[in-house]
């Protein structure tokens, strides 16, 4: 009777006798599992990022953007951006009773300065309602008001990263930051939101237009009243805007549309990953089979001896199969570890996470590859005639 733990022990010690070869044999599986796991982690991280961004905004958000017509030169489309404040009024006029908040939105990248510190930020111009459209929360101070909007006041509400970088632990409320030679008074600080929401500086769109001399809107964002069908409200917004513009000049999307098209892209990416996984594990498996066959030939005498001493064919087969499985499983674990380390390496760029199913799948596939490609060498080992094996000198 040979016990399972004994099989494991002797398989591991046989592999330990040939460490370099064992490692090289593992390499195929290591690379396969590593590349798949790290790519899955990045895709997952991307998905987390998108989901975070959108759930922060709320599911009843509707966005109106200037349309970049198909086949058109994007710069021309930008030049032909017809979105304006007038459209905000139009929406209010026709659909006003179905929406809770609406804001024009202008976004530009600008560097903010405070004393010796600088910070590359995204400046977002919107009206006082943008606070609830963007789902902001206040940490200290307050947001700007309707009267700030109409006065074109030089005031800002800053995100947590902006505060941290420019002010450190100090309270920024009442301080002045400089953006392109204009001073803006800090009214308040937002609570951290995650994603890329925390690099923002919010100010009245009227102020932004006046200071930076920008006309076109980046978008119009609005929220449908709770309980209403978002798609229905979206259609009504579209109909209203047709009074101002042609159908090609703008597009209206809901969160759901954006999410589902992103999911579609990620779905395609995932199937491509599965194909890569399959191919690399196949290659790894063939490598294992190759080396195991060499090892069976080299150890012919050992096999004969073991049989002479009382090993059955089954004992021998199990021993070699266990070795193949350990090579493959070991490769899978090393690959997984490297994949995990790679997520740490990119942690500052993307919150890549290895989902539990990817861990289970990597391990499962490694064992599977070991079994599939270890079976033939194990069978040929078990079938060796002890006499032939002992004569082998």
């Amino acid at each position, binding site marked *: *009777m*040979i*016990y399972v733990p*004994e099989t494991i022990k*002797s398989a591991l010690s046989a592999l330990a*006798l040939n460490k370099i070869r064992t490692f090289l044999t593992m390499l195929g599986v290591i690379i396969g599992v590593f590349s798949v796991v790290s790519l899955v982690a990045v895709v997952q991280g991307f998905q987390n990022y998108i989901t975070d961004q959108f759930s922060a905004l709320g599911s009843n958000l509707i966005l109106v953007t200037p349309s970049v017509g198909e086949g058109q030169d994007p710069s021309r489309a930008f030049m032909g951006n017809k979105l304006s404040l007038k459209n905000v009024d139009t929406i209010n006029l026709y659909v006003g009773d179905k929406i809770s908040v609406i804001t024009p939105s202008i976004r530009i990248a600008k560097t903010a300065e405070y004393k010796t510190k600088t910070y590359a930020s995204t400046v977002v111009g919107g009206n006082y309602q943008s606070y609830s459209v963007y789902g902001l929360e206040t940490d200290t101070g307050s947001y700007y008001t309707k009267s700030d909007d109409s006065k074109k006041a030089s005031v800002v509400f800053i995100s947590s990263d902006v505060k941290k970088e420019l002010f450190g632990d100090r309270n920024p409320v009442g301080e002045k930051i400089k953006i392109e030679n204009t001073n803006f008074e800090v009214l308040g600080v937002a609570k951290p939101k995650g994603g890329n929401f925390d690099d923002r500086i919010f100010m009245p769109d009227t102020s932004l237009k006046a200071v930076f001399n920008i006309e076109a809107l980046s978008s119009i964002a609005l929220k449908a009243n709770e309980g209403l069908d978002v798609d229905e409200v979206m259609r009504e917004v579209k109909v209203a805007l047709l009074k101002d513009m042609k159908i090609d000049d703008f597009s209206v999307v809901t969160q759901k549309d954006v999410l589902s098209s992103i999911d579609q892209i990620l779905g395609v990416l995932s199937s491509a990953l599965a194909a890569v996984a399959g191919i690399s594990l196949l290659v790894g498996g063939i490598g294992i089979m190759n080396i195991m066959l060499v090892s069976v030939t080299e150890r012919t*005498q*050992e096999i*004969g*001896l*073991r*049989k*002479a*001493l*009382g*090993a*059955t*064919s*089954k*004992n021998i087969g199990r021993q070699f199969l266990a070795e193949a499985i350990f090579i493959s499983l070991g490769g899978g674990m090393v690959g997984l570890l490297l994949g995990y380390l790679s997520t740490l390496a990119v942690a500052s760029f993307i919150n890549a996470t290895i989902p539990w199913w990817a861990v289970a799948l990597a391990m499962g596939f490694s064992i599977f590859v070991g079994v599939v490609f270890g079976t033939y060498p194990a069978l040929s080992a078990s079938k060796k005639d*002890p*006499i032939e094996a*002992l004569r082998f*000198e």
Partner: protein
Amino acid sequence: MTPILQAQNVSKIYDMGTTKIEALLGVNIEIGKGEFVAIVGKSGSGKSTLMHILGLLDTPTEGEVILNGINTKGMSEKQLAQVRNNEIGFVFQSFNLLQRTTVLDNVILPLKYSTVPSSEWERKAKEMIEIVGLQDRLKNKSNELSGGQKQRVAIARAMVNDPSMILADEPTGNLDTKTGEEIIKNFLKLNSQGKTIILVTHDDELAQIAQRKIVLKDGCIVK
């Protein structure tokens, strides 16, 4: 004496396509319990073939091998492995130790295929290693030993599962005369403790220490 091992009309013929090699032809042997038998003959006379068949490593083309009164003909591969494990200890000319493996682990090897619980393995193996006088080499790798030491490890390994007989194929073939004599002394000692010994050798002088000589020539017993 009760026969422990019988070969009845055993033949082994290798079919090489155009020619047939008759390695053994109608061999009849009866070996009693506790006997020390030498099988002698020139190289190529069929000694190893006979030993493999008697040790249930090989099956005869014709004839039967009867062990402890039980015909081994109908036994499954698993049963044969079990009988080899329990009843027979092998010693080979080229030692056949596991490379880069310690003396202790080499001696433990047959126990791994036995019903002996693993908690007993080390104790039993150490006991045998002490008998062959290698207790201070326990943790040495097999390739760090001299030829004589290697063969003593092989004897300890053959004995560890307490078999009733030892089959040794040219056990001194790779050793100098003096070391060879010491190995033979080990067999004599085992024989005095009641083990049946079958010693295969081409060395007539060495065979003198056996109680009985079986002489093979061209696959047939001539004496």
